[in-house]
């Protein structure tokens, strides 16, 4: 089989469908969201130096709303999804779980879900 045939065979019947496809799409979306958040985060925290302690504390007071605490938990969930799916990719890179990538995916998602629950447990009193 030529390299070209092998590649299209992969796309048609292997990786680009089912859970692997959704894992990839969500990985990319979460990555882009986190990249945007990163630069907003650097800018917000830098206000402590740019404009002083009062301005930064005003930001924190503004963020102290149930909906924004909820969004903070969504952010934590995005980080943990991206991290644990990333662990699965790193494992596949070193040859672990290639033939059982669905099982490895669900184990990673279980770990992510437990961690998200841990963070949400602390956030829920601030949301409701």
């Amino acid at each position, binding site marked *: 089989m030529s*390299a070209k045939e092998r*590649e299209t065979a992969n796309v048609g019947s292997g990786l680009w469908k089912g859970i692997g496809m959704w894992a990839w799409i969500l990985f*990319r979306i979460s*990555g*882009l969201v*986190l*990249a945007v958040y*990163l*630069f907003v985060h*650097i800018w917000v*925290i*830098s206000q*402590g*130096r*740019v404009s002083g*302690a009062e301005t*930064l*504390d005003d930001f*924190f007071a503004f*963020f*102290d709303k149930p909906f924004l*605490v909820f969004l*903070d938990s969504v952010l*934590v969930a995005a*980080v943990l999804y991206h*991290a644990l799916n*990333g*662990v699965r990719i*790193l494992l596949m*890179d070193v040859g672990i779980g290639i033939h059982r990538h669905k099982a490895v995916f669900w184990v990673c998602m279980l770990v992510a879900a437990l961690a998200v629950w*841990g*963070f949400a447990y*602390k*956030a829920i009193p*601030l949301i409701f």
Partner: protein
Amino acid sequence: MRTETLDRSRGGMWPWLGQRVTAVVIIVTIMVHLVLTHFVAIGELSFDNIGERLASTAVLVNDLLLLVAVVYHALNGIRMVALDWGLTGSGLRRGFDAVLWIAGIVAVAYGTWALWVWVS
């Protein structure tokens, strides 16, 4: 390793390796960062609260490592998306790479400068 993955037009070997090395650094440092800020100190974040945490050299080093690794990882990720979406031609790619390197160095320098309000 599939050669087409490492071909320059598909990203290159060093960005591929860099993305994985920074991934491992981020997994460790972001868990420290998240547990301290979004778990232990949730609802108590303030200028002074951040200062108390960063008074610890270990936390400061953790956050600086995280800053460098995550800025690289984010911009390299954006580069992968751009390549997938059809950023073709070695000239265009090199120009985009230069923009990303400058943006990354500026972001790390700015972030470090900003954190120093709690250090000095």
